[in-house]
């Protein structure tokens, strides 16, 4: 039993050492990394369009993360940094589309469809009820 415990200890210890060798510090400022992580999860990597800036390994994503770090250190607000990226890559860089003339149909289209559907349903039901009354009267 003791041998087993020692063996387990040795194994886990060995793995811990191996992982410690692979992990590299991303930045010396953990608070900044947390902020970067939160922000880059809201941003699209334009090279591999279906992943976020946080998840992407593309060289451009790395460059952009570094650019965001630099701007954060320079005291820029999240909004200023997002604006900086949108000015260069367009609204597409954001995972949450902003409301403007171009995206209005995206925001209001579903509600419009719902209203239309509701109206059609109301008309059909009303007509059926009326037809039903007529039939009932005829019987």
């Amino acid at each position, binding site marked *: 039993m003791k041998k087993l415990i020692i063996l387990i200890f040795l194994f886990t210890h060995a793995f811990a050492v191996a992982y410690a060798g692979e992990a590299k510090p991303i930045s010396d400022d953990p608070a900044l990394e947390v902020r970067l992580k939160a922000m880059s999860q809201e941003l699209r990597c334009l090279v591999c*369009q279906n992943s976020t800036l946080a998840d992407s390994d593309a060289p451009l994503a790395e*460059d952009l993360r570094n650019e965001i770090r630099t701007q954060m250190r320079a005291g820029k607000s999240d909004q200023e940094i997002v604006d900086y990226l949108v000015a*260069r890559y367009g609204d597409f860089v954001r995972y949450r589309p902003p409301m403007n003339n171009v995206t209005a149909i995206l925001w209001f289209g579903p509600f419009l469809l719902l209203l239309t559907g509701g109206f059609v349903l109301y008309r059909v039901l009303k007509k059926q009820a009326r037809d039903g009354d007529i039939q009932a009267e005829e019987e």
Partner: protein
Amino acid sequence: MNRTLKFLIPLALFLVAVGFLTKGLFLNPREVPSPLVGKPAPVFTAPILGEAGKRFNSADMKGQVWLLNVWASWCAACRDEHPLLMDMAQTKRIVMHGLAYKDVDAEAQQVLIAMGNPYNKVITDTDGKIGIDYGVYGVPETYLIDKAGIIRYKHIGPLTPEILLTKVVPLLKELGV
């Protein structure tokens, strides 16, 4: 309302949806419209490839219509468009500068020696900062900049003779080149 007409409404809606989806099949999702088109091209200065100590200042291009072709020696699609760039250079119709994006100077130079140099000047953007300012996300990309320094057109991906004929040449005519 006519009864048969009423039954045709869902079919008509279905066909409209099919129309939109079919159109969607032929759109390229990688081509994201650049917000920079119609806006002033970001001004930059950067070292010129093969001219040690000299720097290119994009502000010096005011008064000229020019193309900025973003490329790299590591980019395979750039090799595809290279022969076309060589043809364009031979016509001497328009000034075209290259931007060696995130490239090693020696490797960029090697490509130009092996395949020919279609560029008036090649500007180096080793750390990709100019690329970020221009919203570059996939090389090759080509920008058409007018005399006032406004980006008039951006093409993402390799240029093709078709793009040149249908997009670039008409714009050049409009801009008096």
